[in-house]
């Protein structure tokens, strides 16, 4: 068994209305900031998975992301391995790849 740490980044799909993003954009004037557009507000979920190996852990996160964390009708998600956070009981920790997997629903 090994332990893997992931982050799932959930964002509104392109073209989907994002009132939160629009509200953030609307506040920029008050900050005296210009030149910022296309603000999209999403959600980041970090989690730790115990599995036989990294692909096994990733498969669990894929299922979790597709069925629960994101609604595929309106949201896309991207899974990233959080570098340095993974550990393996059988061998000392090695540098995790920057991106373990990425898929857009």
């Amino acid at each position: 068994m090994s332990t893997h740490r992931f982050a799932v980044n959930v964002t509104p799909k392109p073209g989907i209305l994002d009132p939160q993003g629009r509200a953030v954009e609307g506040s920029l004037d008050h900050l005296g900031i210009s030149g910022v557009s296309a603000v999209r507000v999403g959600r980041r979920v970090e989690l730790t998975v115990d599995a036989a190996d990294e692909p096994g852990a990733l498969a669990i996160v894929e299922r979790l992301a597709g069925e629960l964390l994101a609604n595929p009708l309106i949201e896309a998600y991207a899974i990233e391995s959080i570098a340095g956070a993974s550990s393996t009981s059988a061998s000392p920790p090695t540098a995790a790849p920057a991106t373990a997997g990425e898929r857009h629903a």
Partner: protein
Amino acid sequence: MTVRIGVVVFPGSNCDRDTVHALAQAGAEPVELWHEEASLQGVAAVILPGGFAYGDYLRAGVIARFSPVMRSLAEFADGGGLVLGICNGFQVLAEAGLVPGALLRNRSLRFLGREVSISAERLDTLFTHALTDAGPLRMPIAHGEGCYFADDATLDALEADGRVLFRYVDDAGERAAEDDRVANPNGSLRAIAGVMNAAGNVAGLMPHPERASEAILGSEDGAGIVRSLVESAAKAVGERRVTVGV
């Protein structure tokens, strides 16, 4: 014989008692169904009531979707059983894929609790046949995520198939524009307030008919929707075509 109709109670449901009351007023025997029990207790129809199931964490309705009762409900619906989702119940049905589309954050970003006008697009469905006319029907909304969304192809198909059940309308009774924040309070696409599935046995709407089901509440325009469900359920029992929940 009095028809038995289930009302699912999730942690955070807050319109379950109102719904029970409205069902009793309409002549049904309400049966509360706790979300952790898979049994539907042999009811002839099920209402998913309004509220904030599981605190609306993550997305409104999504956690509730995985309750034991929802697995039974999906089988019940597949077998032709009548299911109506009101407000949060509509969000749960949409998350579960039992009705098409999704409910996004209101465009104003505000929680909205007030009366709206809707019209019934059809009076020949299991959920609307007891209405005397299409409306406008006055009833309250109380939600933060009620902006109906589906892609254009889905919206076209819903309209072509007559599966848009209710729309927000203005004072003149005309379909509200998407940017008319008075008549279409949450900015729903094509002013859609309620839809049903392809088979016509599962429907959801954001406004609360149960909160507008007797004159003392300020409107009884919603009573016809509750009564439609009760009568349809009674008829289904008579025809013995409802799958009895185990």
